[in-house]
């Protein structure tokens, strides 16, 4: 593709994007501020929940992680535009999720095959 052809294509694309999505992006301003407000409110909720005793420390951790996961989902879906993102990106994410889960499971292996000399062995 020649330089001029690519440039003309870009300019055209920019102009069409401009015209078509101006209103849509303007509308998103409210959405972005709204999601930001929800995220800050959920931060307050996380702090508030941390002072409650849900029966055990493990339960407190699970509840806090659930709130954090919900917050992360909002950031991903709205701010990072994963909602409606291209399949290629999602394929990257599936692979990443697979490998990072494997990484965490490797750590969990120490429950069945403890590393000699760690404090954990003493339990």
């Amino acid at each position, binding site marked *: 593709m020649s330089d001029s052809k690519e440039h003309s294509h*870009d300019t055209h694309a920019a102009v069409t994007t401009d015209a078509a999505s101006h209103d849509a992006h303007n509308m998103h301003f409210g959405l972005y501020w709204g999601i930001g407000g929800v995220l800050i409110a959920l931060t307050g909720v996380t702090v508030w929940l941390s002072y409650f005793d849900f029966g055990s420390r493990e339960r407190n951790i699970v509840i806090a992680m659930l709130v954090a996961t919900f917050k*992360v989902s909002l950031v991903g879906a709205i701010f990072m535009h994963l909602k409606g993102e291209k399949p290629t990106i999602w394929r*990257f*994410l599936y692979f990443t999720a697979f490998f990072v889960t494997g*990484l965490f499971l490797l750590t969990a292996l120490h429950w069945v095959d403890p590393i000699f000399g760690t404090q954990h062995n003493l339990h």
Partner: protein
Amino acid sequence: MQIPHEVTARPDTGLYNAKLGIWLFLASEVMLFGGLFSGYIFLRLGAEPGYWPHGLLNVPVGTFNTAVLILSSVTVVLAWASLKMRQFSRYKLYMGITILCGILFLVVKLAYEYPQKFTHFGVFIKKDALGKYEQYLGNQHLAALKLDPRVEISGHLLDAPKGSHYEKVAQENAEHFRHLLHEGGAEHGEHGEAPIVTTDDPNDYVIQLDPANANPTDPANERPSFWAKPQTMKTAVVQAADIDGPHPSMYIPRHSPYFAVYFTITGLHGLHVLGGVLIFIYFWGPGTELYRRNPEHFTNRIEVVGLFWHFVDLVWIFVFPLFYLL
């Protein structure tokens, strides 16, 4: 020569080059932080009861920094949306706010939170010597309530063994402490017994106690509190022979597994914030030249750096509860 799909999307993937690249990079970042969080889980689950601190960090400050990062995530996506609408001055405004938020986050971390840790001292007491320090640990009281034992005595170091790394810092702290005692009229014991500031024994540590050690049976100290409590004017003398571990230290990475993983993860996260801020400054200043040549190309750049910034925010969303609250 123009590189294909630098600005426009490739028809089959629907992505331009940089967007494909940043998502691959973010995937590697997930693995990097995943490894560190995995280490966090390993250390935390392996810690014996009492050895993983709770409520040590300043929650209001952490909450404030979380809100600052969330605000910056909002403004960076607004900066990108402004460019999509070709509103350049609006972009400059939102990007400027994002930069300020990033700098504010780093200032709070580096000028307030970290220095507080570097000047805070704590020693873990050997298991067979815990009873000797019961008045500072309150373990019988905690055992009755079925709470984890307290195994650390912490606060400001007032006296360190001769020749120790902290001897000079301790002398300065002691001088300041004596000044406070003098102001409060407690140096001669008017308000009860005057606290010990220094000892003649070259192997002793003297610590100006944190509230939990000063009043270990106070119900207010049984669980972490939202607001940080002020340092008390009570002190404790701890003998070097009773200390667990060869190198008693301030709250630095070698102090404990908690601080090792805290500084590693928050330090690496801080480097990401710094990197993001530097890129933002470039695209707020000299980098805007690209906008005049090719606005869509510039908009894409901001989308990509914005994705990186959201990831930095996303990591912090997990860091905050794991280190500050739980």
